[in-house]
């Protein structure tokens, strides 16, 4: 599963990374993320990374094309679930 991670490096700089994480490691990753400092490379294959609070728009588009990922996936799924729930009520 492709995941975009945004946050601060050990030295306090803003950084981001695209990473492929195995499903059975995902919960462990979320726990590490909630706990604080962690090494992202321990949880999956880093596809690309860079400095800055957000990946540049050009890179986002490139990643979407290359990996068929969507930066709006969460929202799309939550909207779809809400729509289905609304139909049922």
């Amino acid at each position, binding site marked *: 599963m492709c*995941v975009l991670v945004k946050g601060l490096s*050990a030295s306090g700089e803003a950084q981001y990374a695209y990473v*492929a994480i195995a499903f059975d490691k995902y919960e462990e990753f979320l726990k590490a*993320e*909630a706990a604080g400092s962690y090494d992202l*490379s321990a949880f999956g294959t880093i*596809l690309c990374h860079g400095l800055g609070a957000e990946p540049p728009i050009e890179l986002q588009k490139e990643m979407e094309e290359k990996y068929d990922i969507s930066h709006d*996936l969460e929202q799309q799924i*939550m909207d779809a679930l809400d729509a289905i*729930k609304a139909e049922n009520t």
Partner: protein
Amino acid sequence: MLEETAIQNQPGTIKPPLSFSEREIARIGHIDKPSKEAVAAEKNSDKQVGTTQPPLVFSKSESIPLGLANKILRKIAYTGGFVSYILIGLSGVANKNPWRTASGIGSAALNVTSMLVKENDQALPHTSIPGQMVHSYLHPQENTLFFNRSASFITDALKLIAGLQSGRDKEIKEGAFKIITKSIDIAGMSDQDRRERLALHHKKEERSLLSKIFANRWVSLGSSTIAAILQVQQGLEGDGKGKDKNMLISGILYFVNVSALALDNLIMESKIKKTRDDKGR
């Protein structure tokens, strides 16, 4: 290696598409020798598996799932409304509506099976069998069997969901047990049955090994299905934010992943049966 590391350290560098991780391959117990073509096709992605990565430390972060990493699974997930059906099924879980759950997840299974068999001409995970070739392996009766088996695999997950919905440990355990044992039954063969069906064209030691491989793969898939459903359930029970939302999204993707692997297993078995039938003519 040094060169790879240097490339990886460059911000914004994109690596080739991923193949299955070693862990994933190990989990399903796949040990078949790949064809030369398959080895060549996966050469780039294989380079990533098991390579040592430089550490990338975050002192604080937030994350969002963006999709599936494997290109074949992406095709399954984003073609023919598969995810929509899964969502309908999962909304049934959220609303404690077993009928909606069954229709959604069952439709997803049939939909993806149909798509894989009839439309997908790309190599499937692990097997490197082009979809059209898979279709040629299956005559109409086998197609029906194929649909029924995949629907059965997914539908059986509903037994576990029923346990989860009731919230009682006993039912959850029973549901989990059923899906694991049923996962083996989906192949339509007991261990003895497998050995007999493989008997015609495989040596004794090969029969035993093949039988174990498939049995182990189904058991692993059953376990993975449980893990995926538990992730979805955990996500649905939360407040719909932060970690709960992440668990929900990843659970859905996990479910898609497991379904694709189940289909791959069915195709592998069909391939062996076809080979046997051809030799028997």
